[in-house]
Every structure is written in C-alpha cells, then in structure tokens.
C-alpha cells in the first residue's frame, strides 16, 4: 500500500532526538510534515484565490478604468521586486540544499541572503505605498478623486482596493516568512539541521516559494494592465 511507511532500520541515531512519539519512523514523520505543508499551501491558494476571482470579474467589466491605473503603477519598482523575489527563491532553494548536505556555513549564508532579499522587497514596497499615499490613491481613506481620469474614478477605486488587499496580504505573508526564516537561522546556528534532519528548512522553503508564486501573478495583473498605453506623468 503506497502510503504505509515502514521502518527499514537504516536511520542513524540522530533520529531519536527529532522523532515524535506518535510516528513510527523519521521517514513517516517527514512524509506527514510535507503533506501537511502542501495541504496548508492549498488553503493559501484558495485564500488568495478569492481576491483573484474578484479581480477577474471587475477587470472584465471595467477594463478601460483598470488600464488607466497603469499611470500610477511603477513598473520599474514592480519589476525589480519581481527579480528580488526570484533571487530570494534561488537562495532559499540553495539553503535547503545546504541543509541536506549538512553544510552549516552555507545554510546560514543562504538564509541570511534570503532574508536580505525579502527585506529589500518590503522596503521597495514601502516606497511604492508611500507614493500612493502622496498621490492620494488609498481608496476611502486618502483618495483624491483620481483627477487625471475622472471618468474612471469609481472603477479605478475598485482596482486600487484590490491592489492594496492583494499586495498587502502578500506583504503580510512576507513578514511572517521573515519571522520564520529568523527562527530557522537561530536553529541553524545551533547546528540543529543536517542531512538526517532538515524538515523545517524544507517546509519553510515551500512556504517561501509559494509567496514568490503569488507575486509572479500579481506583477502582470496589477502593474502591466495598461502598460501598452504608455501613460506617463507630466
């Protein structure tokens, strides 16, 4: 039966310290942890999915208004952030690999690099949010009425509502991710991880890659809607 995991007696003694009592073998524990993390990521897909569904509906209804918002979307910053997250995914994958090879120095290095990239992403996002505030594009709270395209004001407000919800949720997940990476770094310094036990590194890696994937979709959907219109600030 494919899902039954039976002990083969090959695991080294280190297993005993991380093996929880209700699991028969370390392999079973890792299988369960992996399936659990993927199940959790599926819940995240559906969670963000609600916002993507809303976006799809309104983009279809109000395409011109949505396209006009590209005037205010900084493709350079957005594109840079996309590249930053892609780099952080590489360093995260390299961190997992280092843990698998029991390379503590590299593990710490790549974890720190991932965190630096993550922090850079948030800093750039901070600049973008600041720009939105200055230009009065926060729906309901600080909205100057969309003076450049007044005919699209209402519908553009919907897009910006979705923009802040989606990027805000994403940023929140990044912050949580940074917290998790800090925890990993502390554990790595204590030499907890090695070839026989690196599950937390891999699990948090899966989470980090997922957050990257969300951004992979957010970038074209939020920043490039009306890029072909070549709208420019005066």
């Amino acid at each position, binding site marked *: 039966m494919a899902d039954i995991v039976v002990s083969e007696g090959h695991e080294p003694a280190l297993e005993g310290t991380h093996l929880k009592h209700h699991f028969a073998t370390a392999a079973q524990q890792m299988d369960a942890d992996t399936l659990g993390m993927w199940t959790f990521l599926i819940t995240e*897909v559906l969670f963000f999915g*609600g916002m993507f569904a809303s976006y799809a509906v309104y983009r279809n209804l109000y395409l011109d208004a949505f396209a006009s918002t590209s005037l205010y979307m900084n493709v350079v910053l957005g594109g840079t952030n996309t590249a930053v997250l892609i780099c952080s*995914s590489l360093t995260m*994958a390299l961190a997992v*690999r280092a843990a698998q090879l029991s390379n503590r120095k590299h593990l710490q290095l790549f974890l720190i690099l991932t965190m630096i990239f993550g922090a850079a992403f948030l800093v750039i996002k901070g600049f973008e949010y600041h720009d939105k505030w200055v230009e009065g594009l926060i729906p309901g709270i600080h909205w100057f009425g969309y003076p450049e395209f007044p005919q699209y004001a209402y519908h553009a407000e919907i897009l910006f509502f979705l923009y802040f919800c989606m990027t805000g949720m994403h940023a929140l997940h990044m912050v949580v991710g940074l917290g998790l990476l800090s925890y990993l770094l502390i554990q790595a310094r204590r030499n907890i991880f090695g070839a026989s036990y690196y599950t937390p590194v891999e699990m948090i*890696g899966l989470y980090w890659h997922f957050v990257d994937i969300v951004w992979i979709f957010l970038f*074209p959907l939020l920043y490039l809607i009306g890029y072909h219109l070549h709208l420019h600030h005066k």
Partner: protein
Amino acid sequence: MTVHAHIPKVGTLVAVWAALLVATGLTSTVAYFDLGWLNIVIALLIAVVKASLVVWIFMGVRHTTNLTKLFVVAGLVWLSIMVLITYSDYSTRSWNYQPQPWSHAAGNGPAAK
C-alpha cells in the same frame, strides 16, 4: 514508499533562476506593445510557466510522491472552479432570452419585446 531525499544540482537551480528572470523581462517587454486581448493571455501564460518552474524545481515536486502532485493539481483545479464559474455568471448575464408564445393563435404576439 519512503521518499529518499533528492538533492538538486546547483546548476539546475541557477538555470531555473535565470529562466525566471528572462521570463520576467519577456512579460514586461510584451506588455509594452498593444496586442489587444493577446496581452492578458500571453501575460498569464508566462506567469503560469514561471510558477510551474518554481513548483516543479524549486519546490521539488518533480521528485515528490504522486500524492503530493495530486494535491497540487487539486488546489489549482479548485481555484479554477471558483474563478471560472463566478466569471461565467458575469459573462452570461447579458445573454438575452426571448420567450416564445405557445401559439400565435393566442392572440397577443410575442411575450417580451
């Protein structure tokens, strides 16, 4: 079956990283030109390819169990169900339905104008 850990090669990871960056540049470049409805289609296709690379290689799904692959597919299918069916409500609201009378002998002609 037990999953024996697969350790990826550095070269593979770097290749994926490079491909992702190239794809990002590509999507921005294509978006610069007005291709009508193709813009969104190409943008989504590129995003799907990028996401697939991350899932398949970075997240290790290539070397994982069939069960995990099933779970990944299921998540995507459920997301599609929600988006597509909701979207279909809006896209079919404008379809007009003209009820036909039982018979013209009834006298009043078509029921709705």
